[in-house]
C-alpha cells in the first residue's frame, strides 16, 4: 500500500497540533505516511483523508469559500473521502449551525454531517474546561477532553449518525460513515486514540485506493 497522506486544513487554527498527532498516531500504528497542510483546492486531489482543525469556524468558512476550496472538499467527501472535524471543524462539517445566543448563523458550511451543531454551547472562554469523556468505541480508559468555547451536537438529523460520546447529557462526538465530528480538541490532549480511530476509518475506506493506478 502507498504511504498514507492525511491532509490537515491549514487556513487557520491549531494545525500543527493535528499534524503532530497524526504523525505520532501513524508511528504508533506502524504505518507509513505523513500529515500534509492543505491550503489550496488542488491539494485535495493528493490526500486520503482530511482533518479540519480547531479555530474560528467563520474565518475558515469564509476563506475556504473565496477560492473554491469548500467545493473541492465537499466533492471529495461525497466521493468517499474520510474526514475528521474538531470543534470549528465539526461546525464546518455540519448540515445546520446555530449560535447558542444569536440563533441561526449565515456562515458557510460543508453540510456533510447530518446534525445540527450549537456553537458556543457552554458559554464563553471563562466556561471552557477539561474533563474526562467516556468513548466506549476506543476503550474503557476515559479520554481527556479539552473543551474550548466548544459547540455541542444539538440534534441528530439522520439514522446514519452514530453517537460516540456524551458530556453530561450533551452529544460531543458523532460518526457518520467516514466522517467523525468532535466538539472538543483531541489534538490538545496527550492521547492519540481518536486520531488512530480516524486513520483506521481511512484504511477501511475504498478511498485509500484512490491513487492505486499511479502506485501500481
Amino acid at each position, binding site marked *: 500500500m502507498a504511504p498514507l497522506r492525511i491532509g490537515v486544513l491549514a487556513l487557520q487554527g491549531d494545525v500543527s497540533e493535528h499534524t503532530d498527532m497524526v504523525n505520532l498516531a501513524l508511528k504508533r500504528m506502524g504505518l507509513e505516511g505523513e500529515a500534509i497542510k492543505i491550503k489550496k483546492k488542488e491539494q485535495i486531489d493528493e490526500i486520503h483523508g482530511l482533518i479540519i482543525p480547531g479555530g474560528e469556524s467563520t474565518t475558515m468558512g469564509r476563506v475556504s469559500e473565496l477560492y473554491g476550496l469548500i467545493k473541492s472538499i465537499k466533492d471529495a467527501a461525497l466521493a468517499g473521502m474520510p474526514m475528521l472535524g474538531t470543534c470549528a471543524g465539526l461546525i464546518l462539517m455540519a448540515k445546520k449551525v446555530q*449560535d447558542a445566543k444569536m440563533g441561526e448563523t449565515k456562515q458557510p458550511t460543508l453540510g456533510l454531517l447530518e446534525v445540527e451543531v450549537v456553537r458556543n454551547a457552554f458559554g464563553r472562554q471563562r466556561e471552557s474546561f477539561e474533563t474526562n469523556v467516556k468513548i466506549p468505541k476506543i476503550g474503557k480508559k476515559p479520554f481527556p477532553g479539552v473543551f474550548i468555547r466548544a459547540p455541542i451536537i444539538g440534534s441528530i438529523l439522520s439514522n446514519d449518525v452514530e453517537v460516540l460520546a456524551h458530556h453530561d447529557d450533551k452529544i460531543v462526538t458523532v460518526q457518520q460513515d467516514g466522517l467523525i465530528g468532535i466538539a472538543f480538541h483531541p489534538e490538545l490532549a496527550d492521547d492519540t486514540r481518536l486520531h488512530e480511530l480516524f486513520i483506521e476509518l481511512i484504511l477501511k475506506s475504498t478511498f485509500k485506493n484512490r491513487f492505486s493506478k499511479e502506485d501500481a
Partner: protein
Amino acid sequence: MVIATTETRLSKPEFGTIRVKRGFAKMQKGGVIMDVTNVEQAQIAEESGAIAVMVLDKLPADVRAVGGVARMCDPTRIQEVMDHVTIPVMAKCRIGHYMEAKILEALRIDMIDESEVLTPADDVHHIDKWEFTVPFINGCRDLGEALRRIAEGASMLRTKGEAGTGNVAEAVKHMKLIMGKIGELKGLGGEQIIDIAKEYRVPVKLIKETAKLGRLPVVNFAAGGIATPADAALMMHLGADGVFVGSGIFKSKDPLTRAESIVIATTYWDDPRMVLEASKMISEEKSMMGIDIKTLKPEQMMQVRGV
C-alpha cells in the same frame, strides 16, 4: 499550577487550566485579530474573516493623538460588541491594573490584553495572571520580556511594535530579536542557561523549555503598526503565529476591503502571488498616513511601558 496525569484527575470539569488557557490562544493561530471601538466595526471585522476582535475606547492612533490617560473601554460598550458577534471578544486593561482585569473577567471577556497602549497603572509590576480563569495576552519586545510575561501567567504574547503609527518597523525589530534569541538558545550548556535565566529574571526551566521547543511555549502574534496585507505577510514570514491590526483597518478609508485583504495575506503569506492578489484589493492612497518612528519623542513611545 501542576499538570497532573489524566488518570488521576478530572472527575469533575476543571476551568482555567493551563491547557484550556493556552489552548484558546492556539485556536487563534494563522488569523487576524482586529481592534474595534464599536458594534459596527466589530461586525465589519467578523464579516471580513477576523478570528477575534479587541475592543478599545479609542484606536491606538487616536490614543496617541489625544493624549491624556488612556483607560479600559466602558464595559457597556464591550458588552454591546459581545452581544453582536459570535467570534471571541478581547479587551485591554492597563498594565498592572488588577481591578480593570477583574472587571473584564466578570464581564466574561474571552481574553484580556494587559496593554502598553493604555496608560500603565503600575510602573513596576504586571498583574499576577495565574489566578485568573480568563487567559491573558501581553506585549513584548525581546525574549526576556516575553519569558517574564509567561512566568507571570500570560497565555499568549504579541510583539509590542509601536502601536498607532501605521509603521511596521518596530514590530519587525521585535520579532527578529525574539526569534534570533530563541535560535541562540540551541545547544547552550547548563551553566549558560542559568546565566541567561539570571539575566532575564525568569525560571531556568522556562529557558530550558523554550530551548527544547525551539519556539516560545505560548502562541506569539505580531502587533504594532501593521497597516497593509504586505505588512501582515511579512510578519508571518518572520515567524509570527498570527497578526493584530490596530489602527490599520479602521483608520484607513477602505475598512472592509482592507480587513479582507489582510485576512487573505495572513492565510496565504507563503505564496507571493496570493499576497499580490490581496494587495491589489486595496489602494495605498487609502492607507492610514502613518508616522516615522524617528520623529517620536522618547515620552511618546508606548513600547517602553512595562518591560
